[in-house]
């Protein structure tokens, strides 16, 4: 990577602390990394390693206890709630393990939710919703409820929804964790396609096979980056503090 390319995401010494009664859990302990436009990243690591915690911070759902987070060059670690919501809605797309569709809304209405909060007019929003549904192969199911869809189909709705506002980064936390290998494979193919179209994707996974498809792998352990393929191997790791 040359210095000419600006990172889309930059973490500088990010820590996340949770106060559990009298002692403090350090879920993240000093994470610094740069993510560049078009990166296709899988985040691996043992359970409790801090993957979800980091993704929540990257997704502006949570804020770091210590350190700085620059998204597209802008410090977002000190934004107020309204501005954070704005960043989430406009620049970020989320995909969750349990799909997280809204039950009382139809397929196309679910896809339109992010557009609604950006104030996109109804007609334009519907048009875009239909296009996205077709893009993930659900053009025939616009008016179905989430309960009438298979897991794989629901996850495709979630992907369409994540794409609605044309975000800078797509974040997925174990997106295929609830799926069988076939529908999981369908989802992964969509991710591949999106990356080919130039989207930046950050995927948390337990699946080494999935990690092989991505262009960059980051391993987290005990709240630190244990390995980052961009630097071709192991990083310096500080011994965990005794707790």
């Amino acid at each position, binding site marked *: 990577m040359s210095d000419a390319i600006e990172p889309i995401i930059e973490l500088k010494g990010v820590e996340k602390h949770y106060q559990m009664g009298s002692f403090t859990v350090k879920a993240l302990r000093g994470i610094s990394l740069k993510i560049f436009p078009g990166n296709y990243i899988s985040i691996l690591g043992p359970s409790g390693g801090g993957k979800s915690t980091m993704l929540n911070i990257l997704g502006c759902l949570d804020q770091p206890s210590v350190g700085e987070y620059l998204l597209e060059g802008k410090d977002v670690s000190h934004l107020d709630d309204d501005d954070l*919501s704005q960043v989430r809605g406009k620049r970020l797309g989320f995909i969750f393990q349990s799909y997280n569709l809204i039950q009382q809304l139809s397929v196309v209405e679910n896809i339109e939710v992010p557009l609604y*909060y950006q104030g996109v007019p109804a007609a334009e929003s519907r048009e875009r919703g239909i296009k996205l549904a077709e893009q993930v192969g659900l053009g025939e199911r616009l008016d179905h409820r989430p309960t009438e869809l298979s897991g794989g189909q629901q996850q495709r709705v979630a992907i369409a929804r994540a794409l609605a506002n044309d975000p800078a980064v797509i974040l997925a936390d174990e997106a295929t964790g609830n799926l069988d290998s076939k529908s999981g494979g369908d989802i992964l193919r969509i991710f591949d396609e999106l990356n080919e179209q130039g989207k930046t994707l950050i995927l948390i996974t337990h699946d080494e096979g999935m990690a092989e498809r991505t262009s960059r792998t980051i391993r987290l352990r005990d709240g630190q980056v244990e390995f980052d393929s961009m630097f071709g191997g192991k990083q310096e790791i500080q011994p965990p503090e005794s707790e």
Partner: protein
Amino acid sequence: MTWTSFIEGISPARLERTILLGVKSLWMHKLRSMLTAMGIVFGVASVIAMLAIGEGASHEAQEQIKNLGSQNIILQSIKATNSADAGKEERSFILEYGLTFRDIDQIQATIPGVSVVVPGRKLQDFVWRIERNVDAVIMGTVPWYPVMRNRELLRGRFFTEIEMKDRSNVCVLNSDMAAKLFPLSEALGQEVRLQTSYYTVIGIIESRQAVASGSGGGLGGDTGGGKDEGEATMEMLLPLSTLLERFGEVLVKFRSGSFEAEKVELHEVTVKIEDPDKVVAAADAIKHLLSRNHKNMDYKMVVPLELLRQAARTKQIFNIVLGSIAAISLLVGGIGIMNIMLATVTERTREIGIRRALGAKQRDIVLQFLIETVLLSGAGGVIGVVMGLLIPMVITHFAGMLTIVQLWAPVLAFTISVLTGVVFGIYPAMRAASMSPVDALRHE
């Protein structure tokens, strides 16, 4: 989050879509939504219905009192309850009490602003038409009695001053009595017999119900007391002069075996005061004047104007009681809504988290839940208004009670129901919005 920024964030288009969304969410749990709105429905309906019943009752009472004439002071002779003189009266065999012509002269001479005085003298006896008879109140009075007491002549005419002067044998019957004596024929021009004299019927006057017993219990005396309320009072009106000539001053009555004699000059005197503002003062003056001649309270005074004021006060108290009931029932309804909304917020924590992750600001969440509560309470309000309009109609139809729905009652009740939604919806909505997105998403 400030209120101005909250309001600014609401565009009509967004509001419309949020309302649609609210309807959808409420529709998901139809039964629950319906039960929740029920508290408001019954609160609103009962408020409107009770107001209509109260207004109807008070209107009826006020009409009756107004018919007595708000500028009038009505004096009625009664047997004194003061036992000090009882022995004396017993010895004389003739019970002498009540208002006198001297009282009238003194009232007219000394009370300023008195425009007309209507004396009335009553007795109770059988009135005959061939072999039909009716036990009636016979009242001798003056030609201007109907005008003073707001009584409508249905047919014919009232007697004139000339007939009064001539002591003519003419009479006016009330419609109930006319119907009883002349069930098949027209009463006008016919003759009726009272003791040994015959009287020509020259007019039919409207029958009047006794004023509701609540207003001092004595207004039934208007048409001769002693009758049960609701039972039609038979009434025959004669010129006072005629009555005095035929029956003299002492009335001898046979009642269930015993016999009693009474000497009463006037049973009833209506005094009209020119200036409505001076009625109460004049009533005091008359009371003062009469107290000199009537040491043992053998008369009573009815001031319709005071009764009207009393009725207004009663209505005010009624309205306060009603207002409290309304407030309590809407409070209960509001708490019901709040309870359900808090449960809903908990139940939909995950949805809130999803929406926040997809860009919803806190005020979007507040708006969404607030609109749901307002929809609930508003729908409850609409149904409540419809019920509240139907109930008085049903009551009027089946119980024959007058009910009056004033325009402001449903408007006010509906407004309050919507406000209840806002007040009790704010807290659950704020609670929904203040959850951290991460925690909300993790909620099972």
